[in-house]
């Protein structure tokens, strides 16, 4: 049995090299991260991917290894010599590892990520307020302090925290800009807030990840419930405001 374990370790090393290599390639090709929040949520996702791949190789690799190493050859019958019902060190190691991984995951990326997201929200002293109204099946945006009402395109400045005030006129919807890495459901009879700090200039035309998309089934028009987004420099945003307010 000890000899078999040596073979398993070799299988793990080979598997780990292949799998984490593929992961590195995948992470290099990560889609656009267009906001501070997107970096936080993507960091959580990427960290968990590294971890999941490692666990998959260790546990899944053992299953495959056992299936090959301990299979009965044709014509081979009779029970194996090894009949242990329990092996304390393995069970205790497994138990400690699974509790440790869980605790660690809850702290990072879970609580740390949440704390960062909430921190941005608390620190934003004068966020740009954008009222978002969802209805079947369109989005309308208003800028109460800028005196802009009911535009169908979302225009925001880069580098400033925005407080999206979310309301719905009918059913539940969900406000999501994929490039910004966060989403929030819009619930009837309630008002919700989503804080986003865009960091990348661009528009729906230059990158389709920068788009408003309804992400909660809201009826037949759900897939088409999109709105164009434009992330401008602060100066260009001022110009846009002065051209559109009255």
């Amino acid at each position, binding site marked *: 049995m000890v000899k078999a374990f040596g073979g398993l370790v070799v299988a793990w090393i080979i598997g780990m090299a292949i799998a984490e290599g593929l992961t590195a390639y995948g992470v290099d090709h990560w889609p656009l991260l267009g906001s501070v929040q997107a970096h936080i949520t993507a960091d959580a996702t990427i960290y968990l991917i590294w971890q999941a791949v490692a666990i998959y190789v260790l546990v899944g690799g053992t299953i495959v290894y056992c299936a090959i190493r301990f299979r009965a050859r044709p014509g081979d019958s009779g029970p194996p010599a090894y009949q242990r019902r329990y092996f304390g060190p*393995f069970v205790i190691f497994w138990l400690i590892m699974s509790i440790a991984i869980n605790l660690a995951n809850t702290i990072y990326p879970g609580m740390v990520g949440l704390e960062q997201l909430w921190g941005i929200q608390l620190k934003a002293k004068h966020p740009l307020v954008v009222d978002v109204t969802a209805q079947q099946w369109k989005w309308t945006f208003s800028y109460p302090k800028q005196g802009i009402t009911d535009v169908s395109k979302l225009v925001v400045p880069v580098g400033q925290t925005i407080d999206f005030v979310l309301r719905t006129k009918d059913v539940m919807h969900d406000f999501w800009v994929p490039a910004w890495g966060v989403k929030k459901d819009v619930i009837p009879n309630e008002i919700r807030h989503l804080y986003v700090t865009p960091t990348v200039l661009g528009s729906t035309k230059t990158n389709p990840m920068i788009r408003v998309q309804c992400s909660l089934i809201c009826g037949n028009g759900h897939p088409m419930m999109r709105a164009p987004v434009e992330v401008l420099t602060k100066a260009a945003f001022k110009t846009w405001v002065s051209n559109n307010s009255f």
Partner: protein
Amino acid sequence: MATTDVQGRTVGGAGGGEQPFVWSMVLPMVRAGLFGFIGYFAAAWITAMVTHSVIVNPLPATLGYVFGLLGWIAGSGIWDGWIRRAFGGEEAPSLTGVERYFRFSSDPKATAVRYVIFNVLAFFFAGLAAMMIRIQLLTPDSTSWWLSEVHYNMTFGIHGLMMLLAVAASVIVGGMGYYLLPIMLGARTVIYPRLLGLSWWLLPPAAVAVFLSPLIGGFQTGWWGYPPLAQNSGSGIVFYALGAATLLTSSLLGALNIMGTIIYMRAKGMSLGRVPMFVWGLFAASTILIVEAPATFTGTLMDLSDMILGSHFYTGPTGIPLAYDDQFWWLFHPEVYVFALPAFALWLEILPAAAQRPLFARNWAVAGLLGVSMVGVMLGVHHYFTAVSAVRMPIFMTITETVSIPTGFVFLAALGTLWGGRLKLSSPVLLCLMAMMNFLIGGLTGIFNADVPADFQLHNTYWVIAHFHYTILGAVIFSWLAGLYWWFPKVTGRMVNEFWAKFHAWWFFIFFNMTFFPMFILGIEGMNRRIAVYLPYLHPLNEFVSISAFFLGAGFLIPAANLYISWRSGKKAPQNPWGSKSLEWHSPSPTPYIVFPEGSEVTVVGPNDNYADGAPEPFVWAPTAAGK
């Protein structure tokens, strides 16, 4: 107590297949269908007349469904086989032959076989819906030539609800569990055999209603049925709510039976330490259903009440839509453990016999199954982190991640059992190992949705679709097939064709992964779920997924043909083809109608997984005092 007259009698080798099949045996099913049809249209039409509406409106459809269901049940033989006695009449005697498969019957084996056939049919039609979805997604916008958005929404709503409630919820519990539960425990039948019989007859009307919901307007909500969208997107939601409530009621009746049978009907010497693992899996799944199912089907009925009675639980200016989500996910997240726990248990049942080794760390495995069922109750909220208040996020993140600890015990036991064994890689074993590999991906990707920051981005994207298909299709359905192949000899007396079973296992494994793995990438790239139309930059991957899905779907014809042909003309099976020490292999194949004839009684004297050379037999047969 629960042993009926017929089952107490000594019927030497009264097998199910001895009387030849004649078409008139199907009549009770035809009668049930006729009564159901009449009940539906009479009630719907009268209601429509009285309320001056039309029969496709919500209220007539609701009453039609209720009376249709009653008519169907009455026609199935429940009236003369059960209820008439309650009014002082004679109860019709139980039938022991082939005809018991086509009418109400208190024989759990007949009920289980009907479950398998129902599951296969529901799987086929819900699978066709999946193929329609993938045809739609072959191109970014095919609504002009294929399904409109309206039809697309109906299609995936039906696909989801049917796959979850009519397939996954009962494939292992209903099809295998009800068959094996009494036999594995050494009981003559389950504790409430008539209730178990009823549980099957509730399924077909519910499934038919959901599949036919487009006829009365369909529903646009997907399988969630969230208000207030539910109320303003087609009267078909009536059939959704009633169908879901009926299917859950059926699960609940089965769960009561499982629980009671395990507690009260174990053979002498069958201590909890010797109960087979598969039975432990059923037990853990039943605790979930008994505790949580009522809250959730009450929720769907309250939602229905908002629609037809004008109440405002979830809708209107005072309604709280999120209350529905709380009730809905209270059961429906744990429901995935109702599918998965019996599948886990099935691996642990099959692997020791295949490796000819005792189950490793058995107590930990049992603790794992029960632990999942207990922790599983408390984590539904992770399905709407994007909607809940901040204070609920850390709590439910922690609880959701905790569930991986007891789940890990199952893998611990399985790995310990494989290690140092002498594994016979027959097709059921191969499928079990594949299910474990798939579940590993499904479980690990679940952590992303439990983790609040990651979930803020991945929620409602194709990541989630990939994740739960890995757990449900990849783990539960693979395990279902493993179980079908493993116990097929016991039920039919014939062996499954091993070559085609293995061929299909590999086919299925490859195309399953080719279909669902790219969906993780699609999710990361911003493809959200439930959309008929998507942006062109997602086209190449979607095309790849669709084509893989067609191969996967076509692959299901292989086991269908294999099982049918093997049943008709497969190799005759020996009594115990796998060398298992479990009790169900102690009776001849196929299982006779009376598994444990009166006159002898089984006593369990040792663990039933001792495969060492010269190990003592775990079961002893002794004559009973009542035996003549």
